[in-house]
């Protein structure tokens, strides 16, 4: 094996779209394909192309609850895209390559644990499915996910919000100015995992300079401190200055040098909708950087259109870095305080909006903060929307290292809810035994 070999799972899903004129449509990776093929990247000895696998429902249900079930909510394309991420993971874990990039669609980082439909173009969370696969098949424990999409990775955050073994770092355009409107600094994880979610909302107009400020002074030191077994990059590309859905000013060089510094073991494509001006160059840049090849010549033909960063943005980012550095240094203390305050259970009630179908979901999450183990989680969900009707479910998640008592209590909770009959569907996701049950 060469010292720098990249596994590339390229799956443009040329026959799949959410709808004919939707940004997630057949054409999205066409120009990227043209650029990759024309460059001759697939013929480079340091790049090996892999075919995606087809993810199984077991892979998906290690992460998600589909209401009433996953299979009625997704298409074959989702199985292939999640399978693409899994193939990328296998290539690295079998040491056939040093790192890998799943350049696949449809994307996944807005898909949360409970799935009623599609949000932010995502139905199932392909990174999260890959992470749980890595844990199950290869025994990986500590995972760091760095989400570099312009939109807050709210789905990934949701799925790992109670997991201290998963460090989730997302930088994104400030939620006050962009979908999904979350990802603020105070979203830090539930008490047991406090501090393992780090949100870095950046102001519109942030350039390569601002991005690398954050990377060099916060993300890289935090990663070094966390010492993950594996680093995953949710490699959205819509921070690009030409993206039609956002207002940032990152270039292909900015993204490529990010990939070079981050040295993610596995990168997975997320968003990016400047399909002609950005994606061909950003993807070539990332591929070259991950393969250890020279990316210095990957420059957009219209680079003169990229604005420069204002001094107020630079100051804002400096402040943000300082503040989050402080939080990271104090996280153990904050965690102990939060646990003491919460007592036996931590609870939150939320509404979640599915923009694709106009569904409103109300969720009650209850986390058992067990002093002996990693506890369990129960979720009650009710969703309704025009043309969607009403769907509800109650579920329990038994964590990988739950103690016998927590395991039993979690199952009892679902049986009890079923007896009361307030919900339509009842599930147990037992990560301890790797079983998914519908009761």
């Amino acid at each position, binding site marked *: 094996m060469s010292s720098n070999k990249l596994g590339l799972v390229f799956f443009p899903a040329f026959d799949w779209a959410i709808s004919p*004129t939707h940004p997630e449509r057949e*054409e999205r990776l066409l120009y990227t394909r043209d650029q990759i093929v024309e460059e001759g990247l697939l013929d480079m000895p340091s790049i090996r192309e892999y075919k995606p696998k087809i993810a199984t429902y077991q892979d998906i249900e290690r992460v998600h609850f589909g209401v009433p079930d996953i299979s009625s909510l997704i298409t074959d394309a989702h199985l292939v895209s999640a399978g693409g991420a899994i193939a990328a993971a296998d290539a690295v874990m079998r040491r056939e390559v040093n790192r890998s990039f799943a350049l696949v669609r449809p994307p996944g980082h807005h898909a949360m644990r409970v799935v009623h439909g599609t949000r932010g173009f995502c139905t199932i969370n392909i990174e999260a499915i890959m992470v749980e696969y890595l844990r199950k098949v290869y025994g990986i424990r500590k995972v760091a996910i760095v989400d570099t999409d312009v939109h807050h990775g709210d789905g990934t955050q949701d799925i790992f919000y109670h997991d201290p073994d998963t460090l989730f770092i997302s930088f994104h355009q400030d939620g006050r100015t962009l979908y999904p409107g979350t990802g603020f600094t105070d979203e830090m994880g539930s008490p047991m995992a406090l501090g393992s979610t780090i949100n870095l909302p950046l102001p519109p107009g942030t350039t390569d300079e601002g991005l690398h400020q954050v990377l060099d002074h916060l993300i890289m030191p935090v990663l070094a401190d966390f010492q993950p077994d594996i680093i995953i990059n949710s490699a959205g590309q819509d921070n690009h200055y030409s993206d039609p859905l956002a207002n940032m000013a990152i270039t292909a060089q900015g993204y490529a040098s990010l990939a070079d510094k981050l040295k993610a073991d596995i990168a997975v494509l997320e968003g990016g909708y400047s399909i*002609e001006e950005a994606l061909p*160059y950003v993807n070539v840049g990332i591929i070259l950087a991950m393969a250890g090849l020279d990316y210095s010549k990957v420059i*957009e*033909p219209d680079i003169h259109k990229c604005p420069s960063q204002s001094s107020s943005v630079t100051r804002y980012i400096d402040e943000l870095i300082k503040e989050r550095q402080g939080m990271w240094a104090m996280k153990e203390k904050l965690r102990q305080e939060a646990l003491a305050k919460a007592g036996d259970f931590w609870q939150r009630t939320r509404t979640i909006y599915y923009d694709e179908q106009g569904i409103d979901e109300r969720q009650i999450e209850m986390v058992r903060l067990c002093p002996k183990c990693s506890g369990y989680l129960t979720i009650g969900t009710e969703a309704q929307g025009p043309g969607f009707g009403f769907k509800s479910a109650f579920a329990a998640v038994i964590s990988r290292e739950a103690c016998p008592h927590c395991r039993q209590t979690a199952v009892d909770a679902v049986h009890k809810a079923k007896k009361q009959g307030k919900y339509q569907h009842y599930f147990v996701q037992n990560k301890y035994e790797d079983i998914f049950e519908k009761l």
Partner: protein
Amino acid sequence: MLLGLDVGGTFTDGAVLQSGKVISVVKTPTTHGNLLEGILRAIDHVVAEVGSKDFTRIALSTTIVTNALVEKKMDAVGLCIIPGPGMNITSALPVEPYILSGYIDHRGHEVAAPKPEEVIAACQQFARYDVFAISGKFSVRNPHYERQVAQWVKRQVNPKHITVGSAVAGTLNFLRRTNSAYYNAAVWRRFNEFANSVELVLQAREIFSPVYVLKADGGTLPLSVAREYPVEAIFTGPAASVLGIMAMNPTSVPTVSVDIGGTTTDIALWQNGIPLFAEGGASVDGFATALRSFRLHSLGLGGDSFVRREDGILKVGPMRLGPAMAVGGTQPTVTDAMVVAGIIDFGNRQLAVDAMEKVAIAGQTPAEVATNVLKEVIAILSHGIGDMLTEQATRPVYRVEDIVHGTKISVQKVIGVGGAATGIVPMLAKHLGLSYEIPRQGMVANAIGAAVARSTVDITLRADTTEGYYTVAELGIKNKIPRHNFVLADAYQLAEKHLAELAMIRGIELGEIEMIHSEEFNIIRGFSTIGKIITCRLQIKPGVLMGFKEEM
């Protein structure tokens, strides 16, 4: 009356076909110093045998280009590239290129023009070179810059030959096109010298038949056209034998063919009656090119493969140390094992028995050793076929439907040609649980293949209705789209017309046309469809001019 000639590493083979029958064959040693000598000997032999020089066509498969590569007898090429932004490909090219500025983007837009002063500087650097190659990124989307630079070079130094990338291949892959253009220019002079002498000697013998050259994709080119595209004449030996199989044993079921020679075995997979093509193109001298060729898997295994024991374990090949002991060789070979096992009758049986005794362990009879050798041969072959099938099944595809339905081939039949096929193929087929065929003229399948190979050519038409034009790189054209609501069917018709045009320029008869690739994408900006990008790649179907009957 068709004459086919195949110059191989060991033998120069010839075959004459008339009305679907082989009426003459010849096998004569290849004359390595001067290939033409052996070619002439073969021609003289068949002319004498059939009593006529009146060939409808002479098709030649030679090692002239391959030898130029192997012997490093290539010309220095003034390679000028227009890479624009992207990967630095310099390290992936066989020589250091001169890098010109200028850029065509993925839609074919002219983003930045090349600079004449840079071209002049390149010409000064390459002042002593006779041949040039010019290749630009996305030149297949818009050949303008490549052609302009070629014109400037011509005006500046007027070299003997200039190859442009978009003329060698119309498909995407700047790296492969650049390598193709480089090798084409590098072998141009040597091939043309060979072509000159072929024409001279045929004239001297008063043979006035048109001469064609076989290509790696099993098609043929008129010699006059091959002079401009000499690199196409590389790797034609295996292609010739594949064509021979097509002529002798047309097969429509998924098939694996094995051409077992003295030193190597070439494996090909067949679907719908034709062999699969190499993805992207052939690899030349370790460099990826855009040359269309059959996808062949070569194994170092043949009748002359060396048989020995290493640490007590029986080993076969990949090296050859000489002929079989049965015909006077010094070391045991696969052929000796076949003789001892009684599946062929060849040379001196006692010498073959001696060969098997040399590798027998205590208590083993020569027959037992022979059986073990053949088992090992079958194992190597099965493994090679398995690798090829796995490669096919794991080949990346880009549509959901192709993943869900898979691209696996379930092979049903084995076809064997080449010197050692008769003995080995029945055992291989039995091992794989498949049926088999061994064409009777399998020993000269290559020459028969050359004789009957059809002429082929392919073009890629790409239309961008938003931009309002289409390109056909192989013809160097960029034209306005002739009508509104232009769809794939229109693109097909237009491509057909241009394919006919290109066929005429190349002196090729327009045979059956097939679409080898098509794509149609809506271009959407904002939330409305503003046009289509259509790609349509057509070829004159490779194949054989006439079938061939076994009786003769």
